């Protein structure tokens, strides 16, 4: 394992990106930070800038307005980084599949910038905090 990967997995700092979610997945992400689940004990922490982040938590099927912004946030994140598609919409647009403003699920938009991006999917509407933590563990174990 390279030194970069080792340091990535040691303590993952995450940046939360909402690209048109209904706010339900976002509430579950906030729930992960509450004392009951407390992901900070695992070294995971929400940060205020993508430049400080090791992982992006993306919620919502990507709207036309949000797509270039998501790509810009991904460009600013130091590599290697993991992109978590949180929720049914981020994984595959969910109930907004036929929406006039939807341009694609998160993986399609990210792969336009970086075809080799590491993307983890956490389905659910919304996913439980346990599922988000489990997804993070599995993704970090796999890389």
């Amino acid at each position, binding site marked *: 394992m390279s030194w970069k990967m080792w340091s990535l997995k040691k303590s993952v700092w995450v940046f939360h990106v909402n690209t048109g979610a209904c706010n339900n997945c976002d509430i579950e992400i906030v729930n992960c930070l509450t004392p009951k689940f407390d992901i900070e004990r695992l070294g995971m922490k929400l940060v205020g800038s993508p430049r400080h982040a090791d992982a992006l938590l993306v919620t919502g099927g990507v*709207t*036309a*307005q949000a797509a270039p912004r998501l790509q810009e946030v991904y460009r600013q994140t130091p590599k290697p980084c993991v992109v978590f598609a949180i929720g049914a919409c981020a994984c595959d647009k969910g109930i907004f599949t*036929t929406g*006039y*403003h939807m341009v694609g699920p998160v993986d399609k938009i990210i792969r336009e910038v970086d075809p080799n991006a590491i993307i983890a999917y956490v389905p659910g509407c919304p996913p439980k905090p346990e599922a988000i933590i489990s997804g993070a563990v599995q993704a970090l174990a796999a890389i």
Partner: protein
Amino acid sequence: MNQEELNNKLKEIENKLTGVERPLDDRIFLSCEAENAYKVNKFLFEDVPLRFVIATGIDSDDCFEIIYHYAYDETGCVVNLKAFIRDRENPSIESIAPFLLAAEWIEREMHDLLGIDFKNHPRLERLILADDWPDGVYPMRKEVKK
């Protein structure tokens, strides 16, 4: 003011309405044509007075409907005013934003999604569609394909 007084108050604008429905004791549906909507709204908001909740725009095949939702909190009565816009080619209606500031954004949203022109609106600009959305395409109209 109790429910009965509210009913009597609403009788004052009956000549501008095309229909009154009362499915429940605390639910009143009023309908009017687009030309009278401004005066009826002004009456409901300023003279009764009711609390403005939200407005809804609907594309209903032969016309556009705008439903103004009002609440009367003393008795819990909900009053809905349906305004019919018959002209499908150039739908337009008088804006209620000049006297009811809370309606400004919802009118801009209806302008974005249905292409209804709100006359005398203080700032009728794009609100919720993407910046590169083409002009003249209104996604909530029935002729727009999914």
